[in-house]
C-alpha cells in the first residue's frame, strides 16, 4: 500500500464560513509530509478530520486502505498546536492516563514511559505536578504521550514552538528516528527551513483550498523558473546584451561578499542553458554559475499571493 492516508474531496462548513473546500491530499507511507498554509487556512480543521475528532460535511478519509473509523485513532498520534496538560496531576500519572486512553495496558505503558523519560532525560519529573514544569518541559511530556503507543501515523502541529534550539534538535532527531522505524509523519508548521530539512512531500492550503501539492524537490525546481545565479567580473552592460541576445531574462542583483558582481538569469527553457552560458562566457569572466533553487519561504509567499490574486 503506497499511501497510508488519503483524504478525498473534503468539505467542511461552519456557520457562514467554509473551512475546507474540496481538499484532497495523499500521504505516502513512511515519509514526512508537510501540511502548510497561512493562519486560518483550514489546516487544523483538516487535521481534526484526519483524527476523527470532527466529521467532514462531504468527502472521505481513507486510512490504511479503509474508510477512517474511531478505532483507527489508536494508530494515530496527534500533537496539537495549542496543547496543555492537567495542571494538578502528576507527570507520570498523567502520561499513564493518556497512554491507557490509547489502548496500552498499565504495565506496558509504564515500561515504555520509563524508557522515554530516560531517553529525553526527564526521569526525575515522574512525581512532579505539571504546574511545576516550564512550558518547554511540558512540551516534552506531551511529545512522549503522542508517540508512546507507536502509532503508524504521527501528526505534529508546530512541534518545536516553545523549545530552545538544543531541545528542538533533540526532538527533530527523534522524529526522524520514528520515521526510520516506519512511522509516517504529517508535519504542520510555519517554519519553512524545517520543512526543507524534514519533509519529502507537502501540501499548501490557502483559504480552504489545496493550492499546491507534491514532492518538495520537484516543487522547488518548478518554482526556480530555470533561473541560474551568476557571479562574474566584467561589464554589466556587456553581460546584459549577451544574455538577452541569447534569449535569457537578466536581473542584476548586486555584489557578493567576495567582491564579484551578481546576476540572476532566467532561461525560456532548460535546454537554453548551454546557449546562454556560451554567450555570457564570451562577454564576462564567470566566477560561478549555479542553478537557483527556490526556498520554501519564497514558494510559500508566491503561491499564496498567486492564489489570492486568482480568487479576487
Amino acid at each position, binding site marked *: 500500500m503506497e499511501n497510508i492516508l488519503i483524504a478525498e474531496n473534503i468539505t467542511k462548513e*461552519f*456557520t457562514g464560513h467554509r473551512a475546507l473546500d474540496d481538499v484532497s491530499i495523499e500521504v505516502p507511507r513512511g515519509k514526512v509530509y508537510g501540511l502548510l498554509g497561512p493562519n486560518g487556512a483550514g489546516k487544523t480543521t483538516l487535521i*481534526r478530520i484526519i*483524527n*476523527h*475528532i*470532527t*466529521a467532514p*460535511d462531504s468527502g472521505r478519509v481513507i486510512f490504511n486502505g479503509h474508510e477512517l473509523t*474511531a478505532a483507527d*485513532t*489508536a494508530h*494515530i*498520534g*496527534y*500533537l*496539537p498546536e*495549542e*496543547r*496543555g*496538560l*492537567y*495542571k*494538578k*496531576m502528576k507527570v507520570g500519572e498523567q502520561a499513564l*492516563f*493518556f497512554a*491507557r*486512553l*490509547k489502548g496500552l495496558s498499565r504495565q506496558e505503558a509504564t515500561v515504555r514511559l520509563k524508557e522515554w523519560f530516560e531517553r529525553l532525560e526527564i526521569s526525575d519529573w515522574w512525581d512532579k505536578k505539571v504546574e511545576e514544569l516550564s512550558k518547554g518541559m511540558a512540551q516534552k511530556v*506531551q511529545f512522549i*504521550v503522542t508517540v508512546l503507543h507507536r502509532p503508524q501515523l504521527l501528526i505534529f502541529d508546530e512541534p518545536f514552538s516553545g523549545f530552545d534550539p538544543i531541545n528542538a534538535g533533540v526532538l527533530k532527531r527523534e522524529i526522524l528516528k520514528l520515521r526510520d522505524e516506519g512511522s509516517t509523519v504529517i508535519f504542520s508548521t510555519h517554519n519553512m527551513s524545517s520543512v526543507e530539512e524534514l519533509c519529502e512531500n507537502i501540501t499548501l492550503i490557502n483559504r480552504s483550498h489545496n493550492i499546491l501539492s507534491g514532492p518538495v524537490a520537484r516543487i522547488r525546481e518548478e518554482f526556480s523558473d530555470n533561473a541560474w545565479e551568476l557571479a562574474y567580473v566584467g561589464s554589466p552592460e556587456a553581460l546584459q546584451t549577451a544574455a538577452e541576445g541569447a534569449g535569457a531574462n537578466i536581473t542584476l542583483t548586486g555584489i557578493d561578499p567576495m567582491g564579484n558582481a551578481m546576476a540572476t538569469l532566467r532561461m525560456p527553457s532548460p535546454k537554453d542553458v548551454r546557449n546562454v552560458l556560451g554567450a555570457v562566457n564570451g562577454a564576462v569572466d564567470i566566477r560561478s554559475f549555479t542553478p537557483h533553487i527556490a526556498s520554501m519561504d519564497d514558494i510559500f509567499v508566491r503561491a499564496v499571493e498567486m492564489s489570492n490574486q486568482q480568487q479576487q
Partner: protein
Amino acid sequence: MSSVNLIIAREYLERVKRKSFIITTILMPLLMLLLMAAPTLIMLFSSPEERRIAVIDDSGVIAPQLRSTEELSFVVADQPLPLLREDESFAGILVIESGIVGEKAPSAVLYTHGASSIMTEQLIAQQISDAIENQRIKAYEIDNLRQILNEIEADVTLSTVRIDKSEDAETSSLVSYVMGLIMDMLLYMFILIYGQMVMTSIIEEKSNRVLEIVVSSVNPTALMVGKIVGIGLVAITQIVIWGVLLAVASAWALPALGSAVTAVNDPELAGVMSQLGDPAWLASLFGWLVLFFIGGYLFYSAIWAAIGSSVDNIQDASQLSSIATVPVIIGIVCSMSVVQDPDSTMAMWVSMIPFTSPMTMMSRLPFGIPLWQILTSLGILYLSFMGLIWLAAKIYRVGIFMYGKKPTLADLIRWARYK
C-alpha cells in the same frame, strides 16, 4: 479498560483523593451536629453565672412570691431607685407599682445594666404573672379555686392516622415537614455544587487546552459523559458516606432518646420518635433521594456541560449558567410551599416537570404519596436527562473548539444542528 471507564476513573479519583473532599465529607456532618447541639451546649456552659435583681415592690405582695432560680436571684431593695441605679452589683432593678394586682393590663419595669436577655425577661414576667394570678384567686375567697381551675383546663393532643394506606399508620406531619425540607435542601445543594463542578471542570480543560490532546484519543461525547458520570459518582460517594454516618449516629442515639421520651410521657413526641426510629421508612427515603439525585444531577449537569463547552472562561459562563441555576432555585422555592400542602395540584405538577421535580418530589416524599406518582416523575426525569445529554453532546463537540467569541443561547442551538 475502555476509554470512558478511564475518564470516569480519572475524574473520580482526582476528586476523591483531594484533601478538600475528605475534609468536607467528614467535617460537614460534624459541623451539622455541632450546629444542632449548639443551644444545649451554650446552656450547659453559660448557666452558672448568677444575676442579682433588686426588687422595689410598692404593692408589697409580689416580691415575697418571686423565687430565685439558678440564673436569677431576687433581692428586696432597701434603697430608693436613684441610688440603686448607681449600684453595679445588681444586674437589674425591677420596679413594681402598688396597684399592679388590680390593673387590667398589669405592667412592671426592669432597669438593666447592659443588655438583658429574652430568657430573663420571660422568666421575670412569668413569675410576676403567676404572683398576680395567685393574688386574684385568693381575692375571690373560694376554697380550692386553684384546684378547680386546674381541673377545668384542657390540653388537647391531635394525632393523625392515614387511612389511605394498606394499614392505618400514625404519621407526624411535623416529622414529614422537617424531613421534606432537609431532603430537598440536600438535593438542591448537591445538584448545584456537583452540576456546576462539571461546568467549571470542562471550562478548565478547554482553557488550558488539555482537551485538544484528550479528544485525539477519545471521542468528545465519551469524554463529556465520562466526566459527568465520574463527578456524579463523587457526589454519590459523599451522600452514601453521610447516610452511613447518619445511620450509625441514629442507631446509637435513638434508643437513648427514646427512653428519655417515654420517661417524659408526651404522646406527640413519642409519635415523632416512632417515625424517626422506623428504619424501613428512612431507608426508602434515602433510596428515593439517591434515585432523584441521579436523575436531577444528570439532567442539570448536561445543561452545565453544554454551557461549559461553549465558553472560554468562568466569567463568560455566569450569564449562560443562569439557564440552569434559575430553574434549580425555582425548584427549591416551590418545594418550600409544597411542604405546606403536599397534595395540592400545584405540588403534583411541579413534581412532574423535570426542571423542578427532583427538589419538589423530595419535599413531598416524606408525607407518603402514591407510588405511581413517584415512578411517573422519575420516568419523566430519566427520559428527559437522556434527551438532554444527547443534545448537550452535540453542542459540546462543536463548542469545545470555539474560542474567542462569547456565545449566545442561539449559537448553542445552532451548534446542536451541525453534522
